[in-house]
């Protein structure tokens, strides 16, 4: 139960230790086996049978909006949408983010208990998006052949700075949460969750005409350049 000021009633959703009726993700607990010794328990685990019906993955935004099941039905709706425009220089592989729009829903920003300064919300989104951009384009922990960390300082562990990111355009929808008295929803991680995916997708979208449809993060210039070379086959030919 969350803390609340005296006189304020807080409702919060039930948290069950085991999945009830439906499983939300791989790794959800469905059964607990208790026994006197570990071998008996291991044998008993083999006898646990779980019948389940897998749901089809929803990868289309339109389909997700209309009628697709929620992962956590009882928690109401946590959502946001980010869009990003990038320039990719096909000769050097360097990505420049041209425009970034983030629309997130943190529920009631002006709630009866604790009105939230909207600049705080934007600040959380800005910071989260820069984190996601860092993961998508820059950050990498690298070791040399001797196992020595070669990204031990901020000279070589590349974090994006203000010069690498555009001025973010943010907006909000307000859908009060039904599961707490303030109607608020978390926003601290909203930027991070969307940003690495949207930036990666934007880069892939830009270079798909060159034959690249998949890359691992970070999408550093050399990786993008090599992916384009590999897709066009000219690297393979040059090495023959």
């Amino acid at each position, binding site marked *: 139960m969350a803390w609340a000021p005296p006189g304020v009633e807080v409702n919060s959703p039930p948290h069950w230790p085991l999945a009830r009726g439906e499983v939300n993700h791989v790794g959800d607990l469905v059964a607990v086996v208790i026994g006197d010794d570990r071998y008996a328990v291991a044998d008993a685990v083999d006898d646990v049978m779980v019948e389940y019906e897998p749901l089809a993955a929803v990868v289309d935004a339109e389909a997700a909006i209309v009628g697709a099941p929620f992962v956590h039905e009882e928690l109401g709706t946590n959502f946001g949408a980010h869009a990003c425009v990038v320039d990719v220089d096909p*000769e050097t592989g*360097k990505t420049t983010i041209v425009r970034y729009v983030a629309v997130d829903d943190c529920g009631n920003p002006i709630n009866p208990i604790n009105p939230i300064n909207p600049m705080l919300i934007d600040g959380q989104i800005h910071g989260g998006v820069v984190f996601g951009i860092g993961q998508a384009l*820059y950050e990498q922990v690298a070791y040399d052949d001797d196992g020595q960390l070669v990204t031990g300082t901020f000279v*070589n562990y590349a974090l994006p*700075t203000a010069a*690498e990111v555009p001025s973010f355009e943010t907006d909000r929808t307000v859908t009060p949460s039904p599961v707490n008295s303030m109607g608020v929803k978390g926003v601290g991680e909203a930027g991070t969750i969307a940003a690495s995916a949207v930036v990666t997708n934007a880069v892939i979208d830009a270079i798909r005409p060159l034959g690249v449809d998949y890359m691992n993060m970070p999408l550093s210039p050399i990786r993008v*350049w*090599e992916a384009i070379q590999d897709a066009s086959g000219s690297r393979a030919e040059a090495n023959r």
Partner: protein
Amino acid sequence: MIPAAFDYVAPESLDDVITALVDGGEDAKLLAGGHSLIPLMKLRVAAPSLLVDLRKLPGLHGVQRQDGHWRIGALTTHAVLEHAPELGVVSDVAATIADPQVRHRGTIGGSLAHGDSASDLPAAMLICEAEVTLQGQSGQRTVACADLFQDYLTTALAEDEVLTEIRVPVLDGYGHAYQKFTRRAEDWAMAGVCAVVKLSDGVVADARVGLTNLGSVPLRATAVEQALQGLPATAESLAAAAEHAAEGINPPADLNASTEYKQHLARVLTRRALADAVANAG
């Protein structure tokens, strides 16, 4: 990130600086802007026993035009060069160094004496065919920048010598450009190419191309320069000449780039730098 202990002096005359250098022996280092030396000391890659600070020395600041040369005092900051567009490619290059804080502290003399091929100014000095004045115990000598850079972080400066002035020939009528490739704005160049081009009736009368961070010393792409000589300055001829940019260079692979990728960048950046330089040639 804490440097080893060191002694510190800040003499008020060049003679006193040289005396301090001689007395300090091989472990004495000159301190100008400090933006290369201090980080190395904090990483304990460098551990000088004595720092001889140049900040109180008079007369080593500023840019003057004299006898067809720009005379640039060794303690002139990158920010001053950045805001002196009459210096052409030197100004182009200075404007790309790190960030504004560094450019207001870092000095041209310090950058050249440091001898790092990843620094931006050395390659520009090569293509301008600049020379430096070195003052030591036994007097003054002049060294061409082509002879100054000898190996990675190694220059022709003797232990008792101070780099006091840089003389850059005035390149009137030359177009100029610098193409610096970095992952982030403030990074050292992964590769950089500076170019100056003089045209005569649309034909290349003189083209010079310098390469940053593509070897243990700054380099000139002489094959490109020769390939362009006397050709019309068309996009095709510039592109064809730029294909020679990686000839004879073997840049070591690092965290961000393979040798092959750096050679490719050298060709692409050379083509772009030449095109930019031709576009603003008078």
